[in-house]
């Protein structure tokens, strides 16, 4: 993923965000400053397992959900 392209507009946790393209999910996490070991990602409603984050390309208009564990009962 060395070639630079136009920014991608994607939805992350319901917010419209721009990320530098082309990008994989792992690139998106890095762009947001997130530790991939602490986050679980969904791309367009489907879970992307951690080992596949770096091989999963993000496309314009994708819906990404990023969740983690918070305090709860």
């Amino acid at each position, binding site marked *: 993923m060395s070639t630079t392209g136009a920014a991608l507009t994607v939805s992350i946790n319901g917010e419209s965000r721009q990320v530098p393209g082309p990008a994989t999910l792992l690139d998106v996490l890095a762009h947001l400053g997130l530790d991939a070991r602490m986050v679980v990602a969904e791309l367009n409603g489907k879970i992307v397992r951690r080992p596949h984050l770096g091989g999963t390309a993000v496309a314009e208009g994708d819906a990404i959900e990023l969740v983690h564990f918070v*305090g709860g009962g």
Partner: protein
Amino acid sequence: MTGTLSPDLAPTDTLADSPLTIAGRSFRSRLMVGTGKYRSNEDMVRAIEASRAEIVTVAVRRVDLDRTKEAGVLYHLSPARYFLLANTAGCYTADEAVRYARLAREAGFNDFVKLEVIGDRETLLPDTDGLLAAARTLVREGFQVLAYTNDDLITALRLEDAGCAAIMPLASPIGSGLGLINPYSIRTIKRRLAAPVIVDAGVGTASDACVTMEQGVDGILMNTALAEARDPVAMARAMSLAVESGRLAHLAGRMPRREVAMPSSPTRGMLE
């Protein structure tokens, strides 16, 4: 003293108790605690340590994209030290709960899930239809399902039948602190089920925990009772003792209740 213990326990040791075993995993502590609503992360960590709990519950939520560091519970609690039990709190449909459970499993710690499907925003009582549907799906997908339910025997039996690893009937509504409202129902559920019964929700103070354990259940899960105590660390210690105390009292076998007095001192040998 030795004759008072149930026969499956070592008769020479009054403290003998089998570990709590859920889906083949054994735990020494019968107290499980939540990680929500503490005034600070430091309070949470210290209270959980004082509770001596091994199983701690966590919730699955969106990462806050603007401030990510502090919010994640794993920045404060070591997953090497505690068994993380993810919940599906906040889910109102079976599909939603299944989605949260799958996300939780991908975090990579274990395949246990505390399944909640809530049916009503005011009481947070479970939607038992949705709960059963979600439980069946998750069991099929290989999850160990610990199902938060009401104190209804029939639902508990159906959840057990669906293959749940543990049944978690409430003492009283989540966060209410009203204590054990229906000891009879809890006893009945425990008597009729082979799966572990963990009372979840409603315990307010140490006596509630003790009375609950005296019913013979396998454990208790609590959160608000610690998080909202004036001193969560002291309350955690109190709860740890109460759970152990109630468990021992159950194993010891209480005296019968009588409607009349029975003197404890000899009635013979009184002075003329």
